[in-house]
């Protein structure tokens, strides 16, 4: 535990906790729209931003926010058109993003260690300026996703109904796209481009196995994200493992634990009340 007396470990922990809380708050809307892998795509695009930042000697994170936002908006526009070619357009964007990133990093003076820090995360190298950026953007994500929950739920649940309710559907969709880009870029420092989607999606997948409503799923997913981030950093500090990978593995372990426990609980309940036959549905047709 004495490791947490060092400021860099404290920054790592706080950064991870902020991201652990914010990522599932956005991720639940992505899961509801069946866009669970969109975070991966935006992450690929963000990598081009990192490369450009390193090449131009600007803050890689800020350039990445900029480039990822453009990428996320482009993905949203392709999605809302609903064309069959959208799938291919996304593939082009994803691979173009990662190839562009690798190319630009190669052109700059950065070493492969720099690239790795963004691909797999580098929690322990977060500066206090980085931490301020993460905390401010993380708080903005949280407030937006929680305060606009009724509207974002309506749009993600039934887009046509939301349109007929007079909601600004396009604006809300773009808001989710931009928030995805911002979340990806701040989470990039913690778990890396390749593992970001895990923090957005896995806590939601864990929570929805046991919850009954949207709001309770969101709350539980945020709690699980916080738990995974805290435990993951602690495991990394104690066992000297990669922090980003540890956080994600804790999240996945929680998912498996809940899945198994849920299965056992259902089996036990079935055994406890074997006589309870399912009530028949009322007849919908008269058979002659």
């Amino acid at each position, binding site marked *: 535990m004495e490791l947490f007396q060092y400021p860099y470990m404290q920054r790592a922990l706080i950064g991870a906790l902020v991201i652990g809380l914010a990522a599932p708050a956005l991720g639940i809307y992505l899961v509801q729209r069946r866009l669970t892998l969109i975070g991966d795509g935006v992450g690929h695009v963000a990598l081009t931003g990192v490369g450009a930042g390193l090449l131009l000697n600007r803050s890689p994170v800020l350039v990445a926010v900029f480039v990822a936002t453009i990428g996320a908006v482009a993905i949203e526009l392709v999605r809302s058109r609903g064309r069959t070619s959208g799938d291919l357009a996304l593939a082009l964007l994803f691979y173009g993003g990662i190839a562009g990133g690798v190319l630009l990093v190669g052109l700059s003076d950065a070493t492969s260690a720099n690239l790795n820090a963004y691909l797999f995360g580098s929690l322990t190298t977060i500066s206090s300026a980085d931490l301020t950026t993460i905390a401010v953007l993380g708080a903005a994500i949280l407030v937006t996703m929680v305060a606009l929950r009724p509207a974002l739920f309506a749009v993600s649940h039934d887009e046509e109904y939301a349109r007929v309710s007079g*909601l*600004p559907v396009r604006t809300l969709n773009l808001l989710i796209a931009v928030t995805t880009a911002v979340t990806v870029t701040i989470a990039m420092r913690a778990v890396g481009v390749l593992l970001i989607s895990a923090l957005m999606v896995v806590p939601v997948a864990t929570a929805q196995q046991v919850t009954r409503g949207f709001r309770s799923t969101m709350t539980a997913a945020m709690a699980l994200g916080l738990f995974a981030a805290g435990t993951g950093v602690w495991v990394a500090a104690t066992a000297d493992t990669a922090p980003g990978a540890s956080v994600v593995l804790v999240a996945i372990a929680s998912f498996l634990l809940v899945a198994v426990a849920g299965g056992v609980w259902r089996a036990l309940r079935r055994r406890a009340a074997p006589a309870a036959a399912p009530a028949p549905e009322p007849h919908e047709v008269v058979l002659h």
Partner: protein
Amino acid sequence: MSAPVITVEHGAVGYDGRPVLRDVSLTVTAGEVVAVLGANGSGKSTLIRAVLGLVPLSAGSITLFDRPLRRFRQWARIGYVPQRLGAGGGVPATVREVVASGRLARRGILRPPGTADRAAVDAALRAVGLADRAADPVSTLSGGQQQRTLIARALAGRPELLILDEPTAGVDAASQEAFADALRDFVADGGTVLLVAHELGPLRPVISRAVVVHQGGICHDGTVPDPAGHHAEPDHDHVHPHGPDEPAGLWSN
């Protein structure tokens, strides 16, 4: 003479150049309960989707509450009930959460729900007989109960006009009765209804006027036509699929 609520003048709609509706004119005045009837593929669902602005018109014009559709913003006056609940990505939602979405048109997206919103959601749940299921996930409900949830969502916004797309298709008898009751109450309070139906069943006494859509045009506008042929048998239950090549029967002149 009541004020017109919906006016469609010479409306035409096409998907990818294929005409679905050609030159449709329809006026619904306040207090009316109009059923749009027709075989599958006749364009009846397209008609109400065009009225809601979900499908663009290729010709003609639509007016809602005396305003051109393009400039219509008072969406809280309209309650829309789609054919079915979208599957979603598997994130659970309770019946109450889905019904509460119906308040957004009235409340706006920034204001948190208040006492009036909660009271309206409670009343809507009672109106469709689902008050005891409010905390259950919608995915655990039967098809008919899910349909009633969507009707409650529309009623929660306290609309003046209800637009329903096949509200009773594949719905069990108990839910059809609950739905007919909710509709009767809505009309008794002065509401206007436009609904698309394949067959009317227990709704028949509530309907004041029927419009029959056939091959993209309106071929009947007036009293509810009597079922013809095997449709008229007292025990007839509408369970067979309607292909486009089925003899038109009732809808042919």
